């Protein structure tokens, strides 16, 4: 007399779970609680990444990022001025960089700076605007060599000013 056994062959490296209902329920409970506190930690962490406030470090990072954008724009403009590049590339990349500067400007403008940083923050936002303007000029006329030279100079000045803003206490 044979009966058919359809088996779930559990491979040897599967750990056997106790099949007693009480134990299984207890296991599930233990697993559930830590996962909700994990979410809380994550949420707290996200909140702590400062949506709203602007510390000196964050302001300096923002200005540093503006300086980097200005420097890259200057390199781009130099290539255009020397007619050593493709106009399409200059236009598209200048547009990207201008958006970066705009985005940084908005971030800085929206945040509320810590005490004593208001002035620096306002100058940084104005600087970001000038950088974006210079890059837009490059975007509009990427093939014009003298225009590009002027953009390069403007961006060089902007980069220098950004460096001064960070250095100034």
């Amino acid at each position: 007399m044979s009966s058919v056994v359809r088996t779930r062959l559990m491979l040897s490296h599967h750990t056997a779970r106790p099949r007693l209902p009480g134990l299984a329920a207890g296991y599930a409970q233990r697993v559930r609680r830590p996962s909700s506190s994990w979410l809380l930690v994550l949420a707290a962490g996200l909140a702590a990444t400062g949506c709203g406030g602007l510390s000196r470090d964050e302001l300096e990072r923002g200005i540093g990022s503006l300086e980097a954008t200005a420097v890259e724009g200057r390199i781009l403009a130099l290539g255009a001025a020397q007619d050593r590049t493709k106009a399409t590339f200059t236009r598209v990349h200048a547009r990207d960089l201008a958006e970066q500067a705009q985005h940084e400007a908005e971030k800085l403008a929206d945040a509320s700076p810590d005490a004593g940083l208001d002035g620096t923050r306002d100058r940084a936002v104005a600087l970001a605007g000038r950088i974006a303007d210079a890059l837009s000029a490059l975007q509009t006329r990427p093939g014009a060599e003298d225009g590009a030279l002027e953009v390069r100079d403007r961006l060089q000045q902007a980069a220098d000013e950004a460096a001064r803003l960070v250095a100034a206490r």
Partner: protein
Amino acid sequence: MPEHVGHGLDEDRIDLAYRVLDDQLVDVDGRRCGKVDDLELTGGPGGPLEVTAILVGPGVRAARIAGRPGRWWQRRVGPPRWGANARRVPWEQVEDITSRVALRGQAEDLGLAAGDLELSPLVARIPGS
């Protein structure tokens, strides 16, 4: 083991879990037609236990997922419905076991690779296929 089965089974022992379970199934035409999702053992308590079939299909696989996700998936897929979401390939159909399990018949006759067989004419309509 029955004598007429292929030479790969001439070895004295074959580790079912290691060498058969989860292995690729290949039909007589060389078509891949699923994996060994489970094995059917026939026998009674205290008596000899024999491998009688290979079991294939989503209904069979669902039972192998451990824990709560497994039970959830089983509710979605449903219990094994033989001929629908589960197929039974009698062990006599096994020709050889090497790095894959070779079957004697064609996938279509065995009810395997149904998805591919259904979709093939649709895909064939696209040029270059």
